[in-house]
């Protein structure tokens, strides 16, 4: 009965090249399974609601009392809106929900063992799951970012906003906001994936990180650097004042903050990869 299994083993286990091709196939299979769950599962409803929140709010505000009096104000208005609502709330909690559920959700559903009983390296499993969360969050929250910016600019000042985008810095700013959103998904995603893997009640570390990110403006420059938001804020195209009590720190240049965030993310995922090797499944205790 084992002839097929042996054939596959011979076919897939022969060389490093074959291994890489096998891992790619496995990651694609994990992505298919996970993306279906992330976009169409019952748990995705909360993320959709969260994603719709800033759009709905903007539509409502623009209908009642427009955010800016003229186009010159709009970049600052959007920067504040993006920073406080989209980045710090929607992207943060959206990533928390999506990435924590990649493992924790399956532990709650008692279905994680099917992955652990498949002939797949656990590092490959983590990679596949992380990429599925990343794709989901990037697609959703980048869309939210773009739609919100377009609503802010185009709902009342169509011709000047068109000039702002086509003849001014509009597209460049949009590019940076989307980049920040993607980097936020990368960084927060890795953190929440690890938390969902190893912490029984992931809400507590999520709230702790949320608090830490919010008080970042009060922290001394050295401590500011131990956060995700500091590096993301450094990339914001229209800096906004953080208030009279803020401790001013030099923004980290993009050439440091982007690779730095990616490197830290990679390290966190490698740590998760080593820890998941020793992970046991005991649903009773979860």
């Amino acid at each position, binding site marked *: *009965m*084992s*002839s*097929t*299994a*042996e054939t*596959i*083993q011979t076919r*897939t*286990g022969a060389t490093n090249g074959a291994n890489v091709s*096998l891992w790619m*196939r*496995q990651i*694609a*299979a*994990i992505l*298919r*399974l996970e993306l*279906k*769950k992330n976009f*169409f*599962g*019952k748990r995705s409803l909360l993320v959709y609601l969260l994603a719709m929140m800033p759009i709905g709010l903007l539509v409502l505000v623009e209908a009642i009392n427009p955010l800016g009096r003229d186009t010159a104000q709009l970049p600052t208005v959007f920067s504040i809106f993006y920073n406080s609502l989209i980045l710090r709330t929607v992207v943060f909690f959206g990533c928390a929900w999506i990435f924590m559920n990649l493992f924790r959700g*399956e532990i709650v*559903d*008692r*279905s994680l*063992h*099917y*992955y*652990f*009983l*498949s*002939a*797949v*390296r*656990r590092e490959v499993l983590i990679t596949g799951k992380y990429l599925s969360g990343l794709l989901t969050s990037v697609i959703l929250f980048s869309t939210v970012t773009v739609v919100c910016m377009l609503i802010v600019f185009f709902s009342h000042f169509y011709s000047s906003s068109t000039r702002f985008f086509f003849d001014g810095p509009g597209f460049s700013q949009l590019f940076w906001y989307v980049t920040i959103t993607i980097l936020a998904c990368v960084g927060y995603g890795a953190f929440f994936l690890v938390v969902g893997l190893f912490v029984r009640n992931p809400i507590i570390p999520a709230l702790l990180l949320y608090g830490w990110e919010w008080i970042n403006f009060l922290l001394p420059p050295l401590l500011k650097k131990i956060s995700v938001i500091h590096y993301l804020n450094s990339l914001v195209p229209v800096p906004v004042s953080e208030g009279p009590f803020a401790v001013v720190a030099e923004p980290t240049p993009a050439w440091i903050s982007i690779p730095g965030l990616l490197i830290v993310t990679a390290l966190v995922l490698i740590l998760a990869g080593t820890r998941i*090797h*020793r992970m*046991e*499944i*005991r*649903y009773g*205790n979860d």
Partner: protein
Amino acid sequence: MTVSSEQLIVFDNVSKFYGEILGVNRVSLEIPAGITSLVGPNGAGKTTLMNLMCGLLRPTRGKLTVLGIPTDQPEQLFRKVGYCSQFDSFPRGLTAREFISSFLLVSGFPRKEADELTEAALNRVELLPAADRKLGAYSKGMRQRARLAQSIAHQPSVLILDEPLNGLDPMVRAETIALFKQLAADGLHLIISSHILHEVDMMSDRVVLLNNGYVVAEGAIHGVRDEMDVEHPMQVLIRCNQPSALAAQMFGKTEVVEARVHDDRQGLFIKTRNPDQFYLSLNEVVAQGEISVESITPVDDDLSAVYEYLIGAQ
């Protein structure tokens, strides 16, 4: 003939503790091909032993290999091993076909082969007509069969089944037992846990009896029973026309420990520590032609008796 560790499941002094709670302790076993049943009361350590074999748990102490593969290498292990767990849960929103083929793809099978294997597995558990229905709409028995199909789909050499007959109706039960026997005849290792002793008795080549995390006995059922002869002499019921006369004749034999006439006066219970010698002696008595024997039935030469003696008494 020596069997190498590549053909065995080997537990070498394996212990598993959940904090301070004992899962299994100092288990040393070598399980060859065929059907091996894990038997014991709730909390005896059956599922722990199975989860250890599948790498879902890691031993606190000791070493464990399945056909020579350490259990912490899933990419190797699950090309050879299939596990049908007790967890009655599935990834959400999938049909049985999607469920099986998805995890074959995760294991690295190419799409065409995954589809063929899925079809074959569904066919084997007779679930093809319902293959495209959502698992959430399945009955308990159908879900059990879906899990079974998933565990055999990649054609493993070792199949581990935790209470695989739970929730199945009598007809499907019989068919499933026949399937297990067929798989064992094909040379597979089947490790089955069950609390239905007569079914275990019917299908197992050997048993591992567990209690409170310890292996209390292991081997072929009759072998295990034979080893208990000193403490628990084997009991045989002889249906005959003159039980009292037979009792008088047999009681003189050294291998007979006890002879007691049945309440209905139509038979005789005999306890013996040496069944082989006892049957020879009985033949001699019957050959004299004075007593007519209708039937001879071992009363406690089965798993239920072994279980009762080893575990039930504790």
